[in-house]
């Protein structure tokens, strides 16, 4: 039978996938980034309809900033961010398409043919989830959580170090890179 929850999941899932396809079908890079954002937002809404309230809200919040940053990088790194020239920026299209379809079919096959066992009908209420998740993070999974934190800090520092301009060694030629 079709429940309201199933409808919501189906709708947001479809929206998410559709936006995901749009990402690679538009010529405008800014549209790509924002399509990805709306794909992730639809995913967040899907989490909400699966009663994972905290995760849904977190997903909606985090992806908005992440994808906005992506949008600015697209504009920076592309010479034609508006997609006016309709240029093709792909390679090995056939291989990629086959790989994509094969992985989709395989995953669906696994989803359909595996016996997932009994399905729980009720989830704890949202407030209880937040409390449980907090206790989990700061209890049993504390080490994992802390490791993730340290890793992201390291990644941030390393990425910044890579990205900042190289120090000019000869101050007299400080303006050399303006000229070309």
């Amino acid at each position, binding site marked *: 039978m079709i429940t309201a929850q199933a409808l919501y999941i189906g709708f947001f899932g479809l929206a998410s996938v559709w936006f995901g396809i749009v990402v690679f079908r538009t010529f*405008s890079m*800014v*549209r790509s980034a*924002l399509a990805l*954002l709306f794909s992730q937002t639809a995913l967040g809404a899907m989490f909400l309809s699966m009663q994972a*309230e*905290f995760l849904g*809200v*977190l997903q*909606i*919040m985090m992806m*908005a*900033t992440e994808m*906005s*940053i992506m*949008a*600015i990088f697209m*504009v920076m790194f592309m010479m034609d961010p*508006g997609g006016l020239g309709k240029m093709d920026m792909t390679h090995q299209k056939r291989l990629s398409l086959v790989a994509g379809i094969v992985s989709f079919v395989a995953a669906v096959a696994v989803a359909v043919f595996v016996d997932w066992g009994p399905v729980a009908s009720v989830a704890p*209420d*949202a*407030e209880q*989830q*937040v409390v449980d998740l907090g206790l989990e993070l700061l209890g049993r999974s504390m080490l994992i959580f802390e490791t993730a934190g340290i890793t992201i800090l390291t990644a941030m520092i390393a990425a910044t170090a890579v990205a900042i301009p190289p120090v000019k060694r000869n101050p007299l030629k400080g303006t050399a890179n303006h000229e070309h």
Partner: protein
Amino acid sequence: MTTAFLLLLLAVGAYLVAVIEAWTSSGRFRLAAPAFAALALLGRESIVPRKSDRVFFETAPVLLLISALLAAAVIPLTPDLIITDLATGALFINAALVYVLVALLMAGWGPNGAYAMVGGWRFLGQLIAYAMLIVMPITAVVMRAESLLTTQIVVSQAGLWNIVYQPLGFILFFVASMALAFLPPFDLTTAKGELAGGVEAEYSGARLAVFRLGRLVLIITLAAATVVFYLGGWQGPWLPPWAWSAIKILAVTATMLLAGRYMPRIRETDLLGWCWMLGIPLALLNILLVGVLVLVLP
């Protein structure tokens, strides 16, 4: 029913914000002016610039309004007067407000103009920095309330308002709210003397009206959030709860709007530098202090 009533209240609030904003910018207090301005805007032509990214151009004002409305949905005016008391309310406010950024990015990119685009990208830097200063003080507030429920947060301030309990958090949140609503002196996005209106510059007529309405709702939502998180929400002696909420929200709004009148716009490098190098360490310190207080005080 509650929802419709709250939307009506929000509309009245937005109108009052418009009156206060006109008063702070021109020095004249005219109650009818925003009504005339809105009618005039609706009567004027509204065009889409050619070669614009039409989808973005049309979506941006609506998205701005929607994200402000969503943030308003979890704000309680009295214990019962709330659209939805989400279990993750405090986080949800921030999640909804981040879409202000998306809306302004679209408004900046959409219309195909340099002023708007610079305005949009400026806001990207501004919001990513100041969203941190929204979410980190909220963390400290939530630590004291031991709940993400906004109603619970108000109740937790029964003995002592958070403005006294964590004044540092209040200052950071207040400043970040102003930056998020791009109010002067943080109005680099619309910067009148620098970008001729920035993201607003290409909007006209009804679309501009929606954009401005969205911003007014955003301002009042942020003021209401400040009241809920730091000024004890509906609590107060003698008067009924709704009256206290109204008074506090309008007072905070007026303060936010008035502050920018007496100072020049902040420099962009300062805006970002102060946030990352001063604001965020202070916000972390605030979390630490509140953590200690929560453990030490009964």
